[in-house]
């Protein structure tokens, strides 16, 4: 099983109750059809899924973990972006 013959595929499942596909893991497979079968056999054994997507891992462009300070920390201090920051006056009632 060389990486060249059976590259990595990322697996996304939409569950019975879910609205969108969620990343659940990855499989090695020779091509897209086999990746779909491997994903079915590996990740839906307990009735988890109603729909499967597989995507070549190489097709995903990922952020660099070393840049997480630059990318994500500036958001941490902006707590006013969360709805819980605001006090809703009683007069508003249910929103």
């Amino acid at each position, binding site marked *: 099983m060389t990486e060249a013959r059976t590259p990595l595929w990322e697996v996304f499942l939409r569950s019975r109750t879910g609205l969108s596909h969620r990343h659940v893991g990855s499989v*090695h497979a020779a091509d897209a059809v*086999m990746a779909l*079968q*491997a994903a079915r056999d590996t990740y839906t054994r307990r009735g988890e899924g109603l729909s499967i997507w597989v995507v070549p891992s190489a097709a995903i462009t990922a952020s660099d973990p070393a840049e997480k300070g630059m990318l994500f920390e500036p958001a941490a201090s902006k707590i006013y972006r969360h709805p819980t920051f605001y006090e809703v006056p009683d007069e508003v009632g249910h929103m």
Partner: protein
Amino acid sequence: MRCRTRWGICDVSDRFSGLLLRRADDALVLGHRLSEWTGHAPSLEKELALANLALDLIGQARALYALAAEKGAGEDEDSLAYLRGDREYTNLLLLELPNGDFAVTIARLFLYAAFMDPFWRAAAGSRDRDLAAIAAKAEKEAAYHLRHAAEWLIRLGDGTEESHRRAQAALERLWPYTGEMFEPEDEVLVAADVCPEPAGLREAWNRTVDAVLAEATLSRPAECWMQSGGRAGRHTEHLGHMLAVMQSVARAHPGAKW
């Protein structure tokens, strides 16, 4: 007629039970063979896939044995699976052969699933409602087994030089055992629309096999003398060894519960 066999009481004269046991033995024997790959498969993905296939087949066997036991063929599903000797097993010889390499395992699954998919689809219309219900569930599983095995066979045949050679050798090895699938079913049950006549499924099987072999760049082996005997309890030397392993715990600890 109930007769005492080596391992207990088994009603072999009941036609319907005979049908159920044939199909249950097929499913259990192939299910056990596939389960032997657990811990030995070439990758984690294959490991899970083969175990899934095995569990589908063992589930089918359980349902069929339970129904056979209900009809008086034996005490319960466990005694039918674990307390009968090889001469009382009526599975196809094809299914008891050792796994061989991955190509043999895949080719056998393909040749069998290409028959069982139309068989279960036809049996889903059985006049017996219990069998029809089992068939309806089994058909979905067999359809996936067929797709899975066909996709692998195509890639082995149309893959590397070595995988092509091994896949062709697997077909040649297994071909003499394929004729047994089409041996006549019990004529009374067929006439009563309880079960499909296997010979009537041969054309569908031929179409599936020829289409997949063509895509896999594999050649269909020449027609040859066909092995027979499994339905009458005359097996290859391999079944006894397989059952000795499969039944060892049940025989060493009779009636043990989890």
